[in-house]
C-alpha cells in the first residue's frame, strides 16, 4: 500500500461558516488526511460531525477556509472555479445518497454524462466502455431504459458506473447505502469492494453503518470537525 501513489492529502484543512459574525460556526478543524491509490477508506462519525462538509471540500465543491488540499499532488486552494471544475471532472467520481441520476436521460446517457460534459458527443469507444461498466454493475440489459424507471438499488449501481466512467483515481461516496434496504445495501457495498480492487481507485466512503465501515481497510473517525487519532 505504501508504494501506491498519493491521491489526496489534506493539510491543516479547516472550514468556518459565517466567520467574524455571531453565527460563526467552525465545522472542520486541522484536518490531516492522506489517501493513496487503491485505498478503501470509511469516513464515519456522528451526525453533525462535519462528514458532508469534509466531502464537499475533498470533492472541490466548496472552498476550505484554511489549510491546503492536494489532489493528485496539485494544490487546489488557488485554483479558480473553471480549473476546479475541470479537475473535478478528471480526478473525481461522485456517488450520492439519493442516486441523483438525471431523469430526462436513459441509463446509458447517465453513465456517459461525465464524458459528454468533458468532450461532447461520445465516441463509439466511450459508449462501449459505458456498456461494459453497466455490465460490471449488473445492469447491462437496462442501458436504454429511462433512469427513473429503475429501483433504488439499481439507480445506485448506475450512479457507481457513472462515477467510474472517467476512470477517476478517487471515488467519493456519500452514504451510498443509506437509502437502500439491507439486501441492496450489501450488493452496492460489495460492488465498491470489487471496483476498489478491479479499478485500483481510492474510495472514500461516508457511512453511518459501523458494519460496512468495519469491512473497509481503513476507518477515519470525525468528531466535532476533528479527525480522531
Amino acid at each position, binding site marked *: 500500500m505504501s508504494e501506491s501513489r498519493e491521491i489526496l492529502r489534506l493539510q491543516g484543512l479547516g472550514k468556518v461558516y459565517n466567520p467574524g459574525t455571531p453565527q460563526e460556526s467552525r465545522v472542520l478543524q486541522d484536518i490531516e488526511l492522506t489517501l493513496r491509490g487503491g485505498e478503501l477508506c470509511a469516513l464515519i462519525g456522528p451526525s453533525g460531525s462535519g462528514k458532508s462538509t469534509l466531502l464537499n471540500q475533498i470533492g472541490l*465543491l*466548496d472552498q476550505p477556509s484554511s489549510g491546503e488540499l492536494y489532489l493528485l499532488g496539485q494544490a487546489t486552494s488557488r485554483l479558480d472555479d473553471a480549473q476546479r471544475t*475541470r479537475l473535478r471532472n478528471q480526478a473525481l467520481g461522485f456517488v450520492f445518497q439519493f442516486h441523483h441520476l438525471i431523469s*430526462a436521460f436513459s441509463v446509458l446517457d447517465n453513465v456517459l454524462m*461525465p464524458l459528454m460534459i468533458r468532450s*461532447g*458527443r461520445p465516441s463509439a469507444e466511450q459508449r462501449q466502455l459505458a456498456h461494459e461498466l453497466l455490465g460490471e454493475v449488473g445492469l447491462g440489459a437496462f442501458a436504454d431504459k429511462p433512469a427513473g424507471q429503475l429501483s433504488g438499488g439499481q439507480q445506485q449501481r448506475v450512479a457507481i458506473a457513472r462515477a467510474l466512467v472517467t476512470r477517476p483515481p478517487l471515488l467519493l461516496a456519500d452514504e451510498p447505502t443509506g437509502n437502500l434496504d439491507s439486501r441492496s445495501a450489501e450488493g452496492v457495498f460489495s460492488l465498491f469492494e470489487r471496483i476498489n480492487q478491479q479499478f485500483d481507485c481510492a474510495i472514500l466512503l461516508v457511512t453511518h453503518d459501523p458494519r460496512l465501515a468495519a469491512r473497509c481497510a481503513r476507518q477515519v473517525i470525525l468528531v466535532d470537525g476533528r479527525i480522531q487519532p
Partner: protein
Amino acid sequence: MPQAWRTHWTEWLIALRFLLENRQQSLLIILGIAVGSAVIVFITALITGLQANVVERTLGSQAHIRILPPDEFNRLAPLADGSQLLLRESPRAQRLRSISNWQALLALLDEHPQVRAVSPVVSGPALARRGVARTSVALLGVDLPRYLRIIPLQRHMRAGTLRLAADQALIGQQLAEELGLGIGDKLRLDAGGGRDAVVDIVGIFELGVRELDTRYVYLELKQAQTLLDLPGGVTVLETTVDDIFAAEQVAQRLQRLTGLKVQSWMETNGQLLNALSSQSMTTQMIRLFVGISVAFGIASVLAVSVVQRTREIGILRAMGSPRGQILRVFLIQGGLFGLCGSAVGGLAGWGLIQLFNLFGKRLFEISVAPDLIPLAMLVASLSGVLAAAWPARRAALLDPAVAIRYV
C-alpha cells in the same frame, strides 16, 4: 463533425431533453410565443400592405419629384449711398415658363443613380368646348413612352387605346361624362391668345382622383407646346426614384444641383406622410409590447425551470460541468422556445393573412414579404436567448454543494 458542434453537443442535448421531459410546460410557452408572433406577423403584413396600398394609390397618379422653373420675383435696383427706400411690393404673378436648357437637364437626370425615370411635361390651363358646353381643363403635353414610366396610365385606361399623336387626346372619365364625350368624338381646346385646336378622343382613363379625372387632358408634347405658346419648352420634369421614402432627400440634392424649384411627393403630401408615420409608430409600439410580453413569458418559464432543475444542475456541476455549459443549456432553451414559437406563430400569421385576403372586404390585398417570417423567427430566437439570460445566469451561479442537496 465541426469542433464547435462537438463541443456544444452536450448542452444542446441537455437543453432538448429538459424541454422534452417537461412537455406540457414547453408546449404552453411555445403556444404563448406563437400567439405573440402571429399577432406581430399579421399586424406587420397588414399595416405594410395598407401603407403600400395608400402610397400606391397616391403615387399612382403623381410623380415622386417634380422639377419646375424657379418662381419669378421682383429685383430691386441698388440704392445710392445715404438714400432710403420706402417700399410696398406686390409679389409677381407666376407666368407659364419653360425650364431653361431642359434637354441638358433631362440627359443629366437620365444618368442620375437615384432617379429611375424622367419625363418632360408641358402643362397649362385651357378651356375645353363641345357644342355649348365648356369647362376648364389642364393640358398636359407628354412624351408618352417616358411618361408611362412615371404614371402607369395603362393601368387606368377605361376605354379606347393608349396612344398620342398630333390632334389626339386622352381625357379623364369625369370630363368625358361632363361633356358627353366618347371614343372618336372631337373636342375643341382653347388655350387663349387665339391658340386653339380640335382633337380626337382616342382614350379615356380613370386615375381615381376626381379632380384629375375632371381636368386632365393629355396631348402629344409638341401640340401642347404650341397651344401653350411654349415652343420647344417644358414646364416641369417629372421623375420617379427607386426609394420613394428617399424622395425628399433626392429632391433637396437636385435643388442644390440645378438651382430650380424641386418638389417631392413627401413635401406636397405632408398630411399623408404624417398619417403613415403615426401608423408605423403605432405598429412599432404594438410589436414592442407584444415582444416584451413574450420575452417575459420565456424568462418566467425558464426561471421556474431553473428552480425545478436545481438538483440536476448541482449534479452536472459536481460531474465537472463548467458554469458556461450550464449557462448555455438555458440560453439554448430560450432560443428554442423563441424559434419553435415563432415558427408556429409565423405560420398562423400567414394563415390569418390568407383568410383576410379570402374573406376580407377586398379593399386591398395583403402580401407577405418573403423575409417577414424568417426575420420574425430570427428576432424571436434572439429575444428568447436574451430573455433566458437572467435565469441562465442564476443557474450557472448556483453553488453545486447547495444545489445537490436541494429538495
